[in-house]
């Protein structure tokens, strides 16, 4: 069960990661956050963001165009 859900469906990349970066300071360390996006480059962007900021992707699900990424902050 995630602590927080962020749905960025309909937003074109790189808006989802820019929005995630702005919201991220409110998160607590260790929190589980689910991020949903449907932009074709969303998966690539979210993976790059997690790698740069040292966050762990604990799950990634694809439902058609929609991708749900679960991250440990």
């Amino acid at each position: 069960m995630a602590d927080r859900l962020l749905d960025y469906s309909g937003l074109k990349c790189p808006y989802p990661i820019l929005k995630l970066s702005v919201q991220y300071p409110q998160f607590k360390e260790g929190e589980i956050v689910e991020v949903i996006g449907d932009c074709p480059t969303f998966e690539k962007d979210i993976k790059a963001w997690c790698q740069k900021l040292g966050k762990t992707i604990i799950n990634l699900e694809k439902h058609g165009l929609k991708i749900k990424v679960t991250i440990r902050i």
Partner: protein
Amino acid sequence: MHEATVCTEGCFIKCKNFFCEHGQRLSELLHLCSDVIEKIGKGDTSQKIDIKVERYSLQRLIDSINKLSKDIEELINLNHELAIGICEHFDVLRRLQEGDFSAKASEDSSIEIVKMLGQLINRQRERFLDYIDKIKEQHSEMVKIYEQERVILSSIGVAILITEEDMTVEFVNEEFERLTGYTKKEIEGKMRWSDFIPEDILPQAIEYHKLRRISPSLAPSQYEIKIKDKHGRIKDALMTVAMIPYTKKSIKSIIDITERKKIQEQLLHSQKIESLGMLSGRIAHEYKNILTGVLGFAAILDAKIQDENLKKYVQKIVEAGQRARDLSNTLLTFSRKEDISTVTKINLNKFLVNYSEFLRSIIGRDIELKLNLPESEVLYEIDPAHLEVIVLNLVTNSRDAMPEGGEVVITLNEIHLNSDYQNTHPLVKPGNYLVLSISDTGTGMDEETKKRVFEPFFTTKPKGKGTGLGLTTVYGLVKGYNGHIHLYSELGQGTTFKIYFPQKNKINMELINKEILKGNETVLLVDDDAQVRQYIGSFLRDYGYTVYEAENGEQALKIFEEYKEKIDLCLIDFIMPVITGLEVKKRINSINPKTKILIMSGNPITLKDTTIIEKSISPEEILFKIRNILDQKE
């Protein structure tokens, strides 16, 4: 491949032939192109049209779409790298702002501005870290200074305390602990400055405390104050106060002046008594002169008057005059105008034992008189009549202070007072003293009585019972022997008078081998008093000395001139008619500067470059002194 044909339906743009094969194929291709463009538009640049057609215009469209996909892919990649770079740097800046200096920006972006932004952030971070290091260094230095100051403040021999604006005590040093009896733990942060101030001066202390914070120049920086300690004792103190810069705190340094004040009071009291002595002595002296006339003429009148009735009146005048003369004499004793001339060496143990019989008859049965005397005999040169007056007055006072009965103890002992004692009793010179103390278990005295007890005509006794001159006389007599009198009294507890008689620096001659006092030198003895000459000359001869005697300075100089080679020492009286002892000394020294000279005096005096001996000391002491001078020990 289709062969080139001419379309009769209006070519494929305007073709209305639904079944035209060319038209259908073209339509399919255009639909494909539209789908691919749509997907590229959504950001999916993986879409490519991998078809080759013969018609140039169509192939150009396919090539353009493929090129558009590639160009947009590049734009998206650039855009994404830019966004990731911004996200990363944003996060690093945020962490730095929150104080997490482990955050470091990456400098590996292929986008130059993102790379430079990373470098800028890292340099800024380095700069911050340098500042922080410097601040830490300064802080550490300040901590050291703070600790050093605290050690200095703690170990300094003056009581220190630092107070907050609301009077809470922030810091005290060890001396303050000693002054107040409280511990640091009990005071710091828990007690207020006002807790140490007696109530009667508290409003003033608070006013100064507030005023100093509003206008420091208006509050005194140094003033005398009273400090209340843990046991409620009030101490006099001198306090210096200053505001600590940039704070509302003040630092107070406090010196305990309780002892100093006591000494000042002692001095003032002594000066007051001295002034009273001088004044009463002068008045008594003048009255005595007047009374001489009154009594003299009354005596003449008495001799000349024949009428017995009138003679009675003259007798009354004489009696009144005599009483007035006695009173004047008492006052003269206090002011020490009277000579203490009849001093004799008496055995105080015997004196007190004998005199106590008389005292017991005076004090009555309800009062017990105890003697506390040393086993060894104590000899002292004093006029016995004076000693009687001293003891009688003090014992009588004790008796009057014990109407219900009690105990009087007379104690005698010898003590040595060192310079430490002088620190608290500035009028007392260090040395050996004979202490005569008289204690009672009577009513005691209040502070006011203690202050005035030696004043002439001060009495607490009912009118007609006391003259107010008893203790005044005792004081005068004791002072006459260069002694001191100290009073200790507590209301309801009793009173003790301690009299300190100075003992001359006598040597315990009994312990000295008389052989060492002997000599075979020649002494010139000069004194106008034949008895003294005979007395000193005889014991000098007894101890082996050759003695030449001279009865005045002139004779002495003649003898010295004649026997200057033989005379080893001259013993010369200080006061002589015609040529004084000092003049004789001077002339002898002009003949032979190496001649040893010892001046004899009836009174204790000191003169520069002159060895003086008191005539009143024992022969052994005189011989000891002579021996020391001849052997160059002095």
